[in-house]
């Protein structure tokens, strides 16, 4: 361990942050600048002590994601035509069908990716965005982990979109069997993209600021 924390000698202050020291840190490369600098001299990224209007952008993308998630569950994800007979499957319908075929593990994967992860993500982002304003029951490290999990796992919701794209591109045997994507495939893909943008808009430094204020 060769990185030292800057301890404030003889003070009860917890931790010296760049903002408390009157400096601006780059969130891309970590370089520290004097206050008022507007571009990072190392990586040229725009500098902000805290991302401007972070929470507003989080909520805007969150809402867009939620709005897109509703039709994704109502309308069919997949239209399968076999010998002229068409069946439509919603997200949940697809999971049930997999279970009827006995593929419980795959059904579990699709259910997690398409239902549990998106729903959990909406709740987690909302909780994080609210908790920076109010005193939170979860410890700050737990909230940071929650944020990392949301960022890491959110992308995996795309599985079902890829499944639909692969099936509809490959299963094209004219009259015998053909698969077409439904409206839900597009709105679900949009919902995942919007919630990814929502999570990316969140400035994780806000979690730690809230903690700092609690201690004062």
């Amino acid at each position, binding site marked *: *361990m*060769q*990185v*030292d*924390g*800057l301890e*404030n000698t003889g003070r009860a202050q917890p*931790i010296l*942050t*760049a903002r*408390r*020291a*009157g*400096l601006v*840190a780059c969130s*891309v*490369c*970590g*370089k*520290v600048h004097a206050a008022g600098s507007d571009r990072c001299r*190392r*990586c*040229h990224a725009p500098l902000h002590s805290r991302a401007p209007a972070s929470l507003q952008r989080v909520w805007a993308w969150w809402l867009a994601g939620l709005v897109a998630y509703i039709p994704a569950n109502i309308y069919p994800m997949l239209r399968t035509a076999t010998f002229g007979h068409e069946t439509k499957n919603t997200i949940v319908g*697809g999971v049930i069908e*997999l279970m009827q*075929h006995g593929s419980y593990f*795959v059904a579990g*994967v*699709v259910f997690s990716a398409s239902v549990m992860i998106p729903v959990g993500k909406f709740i987690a982002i909302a909780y994080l965005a609210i908790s920076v304003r109010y005193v939170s029951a979860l410890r700050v*490290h737990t909230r*940071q982990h929650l944020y990392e999990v949301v960022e890491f796992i959110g*992308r995996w919701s*795309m*599985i*079902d*979109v*890829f*499944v639909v*794209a*692969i*099936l*509809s*591109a*490959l*299963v*094209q*045997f004219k009259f*015998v*069997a053909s698969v*077409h*994507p*439904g*409206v839900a*495939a*597009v709105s679900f*893909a949009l919902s995942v993209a919007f919630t*990814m943008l929502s999570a990316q808009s969140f400035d994780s*430094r806000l979690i*730690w*600021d809230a903690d700092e204020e609690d201690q004062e």
Partner: protein
Amino acid sequence: MQVALADDGQTEHLDLEGLIACPVCDALHNLHPVPVGEIARCHRCHSTLMAPRASAMTQIVMLAASALILMVAAVFFPFLDLSAAGFSQESSVIDAITAFSDGLLFPLSFAVAALIVVLPAIRLAAILYVLGPMMIGERPARHAIPAFRLAEALKPWSMAEIFVVGVAVALVKIGGMAQVHVGPAFWAFVALVVITALKDTFMCRLTVWKTLEERSQS
């Protein structure tokens, strides 16, 4: 560069060049050179600040180059071979993306092409462009800085590994309708995913930024 900062009446002089702020939680640290093989963590949020590795640049360049070559194979070689009721169909990823562009499939294949082929390929190319000259000790290429920022920004949007899981699920779903044989492109994709993951664990973001900065000045 020296900055005087007043902190509750006490004035400290901090050398900005020797400081690093944790990108996750904003805590300030004095940065000494981190020995190869060690991991420097933030003392506040414990996220990894730096984890330099021996000859990491060379390894990353080699891995990124192999991943890019595998990407070409994955796109143009046969991916899946389906047969059902006397029909047989062999398709590559590029066939699948270009062949069916009716209605809703068009925006969908556009998005899929971007997420599994275009964005990962751009990201790999940007990493090669930035780290290639640095590996042989040259000055960074022009626009290396925006290129590396692009590579970092594209990371969450490169979804080749999710696609591989998607293919596995699709194979189970097709199982009832048709016989499926996976082609060489599928295995190229799997290898590509493993190599990209390995490359990302070798890559220490802050070390690359610091090296870029030092080399651009010299």
